[in-house]
């Protein structure tokens, strides 16, 4: 009855309509003909794997970036927000994945950042009124973990996230977009978020909720839309929810013959890298791991489970306080040590950490080979260096107008190829790869998988840190699932290894 009623009123209550949206990043197609509509009084769930286009579509709605094609209608008007602020003023608020609070100011100041005018008293800003207003806001949500006058730097990640939620809610959005916020929240924080969802639903507002956590999605969303590779696979009503069905929809890509490896080859028993009960300042506590020659070891988990820290610690970037990382008997305590022991590291943040964007392809690849390419004393041989670089450009078929073009002119996939190029060229035999296929289109991905396999075949050891479970399952000889800085599960490569077999260990 109620659902019928809702459906009846739906025709009039459509808040936002997305029509045939496309989005390309260079050659990568992030969204392909995406259409849906959102109605008032409902909480919509958007679910899909990493890189499936969830964040892209929500950021387009919230005005962070424009669509390449297609259009949107919001409150019966053409919707084309130029910035997030415009969107916010018109009633679409978004809580973003990355942290958006400033540490050195108070909670109240963060909530009203950029809108201090609201409390203008002549030329001045009335701090008392601002703090009071913020406190009222916090009280109205029943938040007692911190006060509006507290300095944000004294709060933990979860509380900061809550500030962002409150900041967004102050504007009374008609449409609230929550993008993977819950992973940063503990139980208490999640309860708060859920209460917000309920409240908005009651107030006849609309929520677009994005999360990895299937259980929470099923529990709190009235409607689930599944995205895969930028395409909407399907939409389910609450009564149709069935975890297995949803998972299948999310994962169910066709696994072509050569996309992932199909063999069950084992690896040697020789340990090439060993982390012995390592502890870092933040995430890892007594973490141990062994990597064998010719092995691809996958590490998976939620983004803040500590798996990225493992990569950094193994390569000597993050300080290991206790325990040690050993490669063939040598202790690794800095990237220099690691490289001297023929290790390689591809960072999750490719553009800021693994590449010199304004440098040329040549300079990036050659950066690992200064020593190898010496001609005499410290003088580098141009001929050797050219060969060193050309070889990689050819081998990895990097698409570029020439090796002397800046890397920032390349597409994401080709940029990543350049990163690989520099390490392959350096002849590293232990590779620590942190999300190497992030933001890369399918074609390049396939060739990378092939490359990993070839490396394995030539007895190199790879640690593959990834947020994408299918990738881990498809490629790795062994998969470690991490949770809260510890290993929560370890699985070996078998035919029966499936995603939902692993997902439970992540949450």
């Amino acid at each position: 009855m109620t659902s019928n009623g809702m459906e009846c009123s739906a025709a009039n209550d459509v808040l936002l309509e997305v029509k045939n949206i496309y989005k390309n990043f260079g050659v990568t197609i992030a969204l392909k003909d995406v259409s849906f509509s959102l109605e008032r009084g409902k909480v919509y769930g958007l679910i899909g794997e990493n890189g499936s286009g969830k964040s892209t579509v929500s950021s387009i709605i919230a005005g962070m970036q424009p669509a390449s094609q297609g259009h949107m209608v919001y409150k019966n008007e053409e919707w084309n927000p130029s910035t997030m602020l415009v969107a916010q003023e018109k009633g679409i608020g978004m809580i973003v994945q990355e942290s958006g609070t400033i540490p050195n100011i108070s909670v109240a100041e963060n909530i009203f950042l950029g809108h201090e005018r609201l409390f203008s008293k002549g030329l001045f800003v009335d701090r008392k009124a601002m703090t009071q207003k913020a406190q009222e806001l916090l009280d109205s949500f029943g938040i007692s973990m911190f006060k509006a006058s507290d300095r944000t730097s004294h709060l933990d990640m979860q509380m900061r996230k809550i500030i962002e939620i409150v900041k967004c809610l102050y504007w009374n959005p008609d449409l609230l977009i929550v993008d993977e916020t819950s992973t940063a929240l503990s139980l208490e924080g999640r309860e708060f978020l859920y209460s917000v969802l309920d409240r908005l639903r009651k107030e006849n507002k609309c929520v677009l909720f994005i999360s990895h956590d299937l259980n929470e999605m099923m529990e709190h969303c009235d409607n689930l839309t599944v995205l895969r590779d930028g395409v909407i696979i399907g939409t389910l009503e609450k009564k149709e929810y069935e975890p297995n069905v949803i998972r299948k929809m999310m994962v169910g890509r066709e696994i072509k013959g050569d996309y992932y490896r199909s063999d069950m080859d084992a690896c040697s028993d020789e340990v090439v890298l060993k982390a012995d009960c390592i502890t870092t300042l933040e995430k890892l506590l007594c973490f141990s791991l062994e990597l064998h020659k010719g092995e691809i070891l996958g590490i998976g988990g939620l983004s803040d489970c500590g798996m990225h820290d493992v990569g950094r610690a193994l390569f000597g970037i993050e300080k290991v306080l206790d325990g040690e990382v050993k490669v063939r008997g040598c202790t690794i305590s800095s990237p220099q040590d690691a490289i001297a022991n023929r290790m390689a590291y591809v960072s999750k943040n490719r553009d800021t950490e693994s590449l010199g964007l304004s440098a040329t392809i040549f300079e990036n690849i050659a950066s690992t080979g200064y020593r190898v390419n010496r001609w005499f004393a410290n003088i580098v041989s141009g001929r050797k260096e050219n060969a060193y670089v050309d070889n990689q450009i050819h081998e990895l078929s990097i698409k570029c107008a020439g090796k002397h073009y800046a890397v920032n002119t390349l597409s994401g996939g080709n940029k990543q190829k350049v990163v690989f190029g520099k390490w392959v060229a350096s002849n590293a035999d232990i590779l620590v790869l942190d999300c190497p296929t992030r933001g890369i289109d399918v074609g390049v991905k396939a060739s990378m998988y092939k490359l990993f396999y070839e490396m394995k075949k030539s007895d190199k050891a790879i640690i593959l840190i990834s947020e994408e479970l299918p990738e881990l399952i498809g490629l790795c000889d062994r998969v470690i699932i991490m949770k809260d800085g510890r290993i929560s599960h370890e699985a070996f490569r078998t035919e029966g290894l499936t995603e939902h077999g692993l997902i439970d260990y992540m949450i």
Partner: protein
Amino acid sequence: MFRNRKAKDALFTFAFPLAMFVLMELLCFFLKGRHLVGSLLDVKTLVRNTGISAIIAFALSFNLSCGRFDLSLGAQRLAGTIIGGMIAMELGLSGLWFLLFSFLCGLVFGFITGMVFVITRVPPMVLGVGIGLVWECVPYTMSKGKGLNLFGVHGTEILTDTVFTIAVMIVVAVFVSLIMNRTKFGYEMKAIQGSQLIARNSGINIFRHAVLCYMFAGGLVCVAGIIDAAFQTQMSSTMGLASNGVVVSNMFAMMLGGYIGERSNQATGVIVASLTLNLFSYGLTLMELSEANTSVVNQTVFVLFLVFLANRYYFRKRKAEKARIAQALEQRRIMSVA
């Protein structure tokens, strides 16, 4: 508990000038057999020097706390003070107008510098060199190389008056603390210090903000400039970016002020820091140290302070690391038991 903390903060803040006073007083007394502050005139000199250096330190803090070091600030001081003074002199106005016109000229030069900065977006230090060369040239050409000469100009006495200097310093301090703490500008300032990107995403116009910073800085150095010029009866128009020395020498006051101000507020911090450093150099003058040696001592202390500032969290971090190691050992023990 709260009151206790406030008292502690106040103690921390005033400990600096007090300790410096005691130190220099002792040195003066035992080495030279005299007191650091022996008369009202000593107080007057100290107040004036403190005022001038505090105002310059405030000016510096506008840009430096956003990570910009403007090498043309000295040239702006020169240009604004000389041209403002010349205008006031031309119009036959009295003391306060000199201050006003210099301030206004400073705002104009600061504004233009800021505009050039946000339009070109060249790193501030590099930009400062280019634009500083131009600014130095302006007063030189306009005054035919004479600079500003206030010797015997009527009505400028007020600018050298102690009470007036204190008043100006307080007005500037109040202005700066109001603008930093109470206005939208101040809120934006803190946000930009935290993260330029988030601030920008939150709708703060960082470009307008930068222009304002440059503008206020320009205005303030010129206020300090005209007080200085009035006392020395002149400001000569120098070239070759020599004008920057005065500004750079007050950087210590600004940095120390920022540090002291963490426990109270920046305005108090800067004034207290300026007072501390002026007590220091006044003491050195009394001990008949030559100007170069005073400078050597001063700069050496500054280096040490910078080293301290850069490594002040080192021990805290070490402590956290040690705690973590202990935790790790505990974990190992548990695991070995298991």
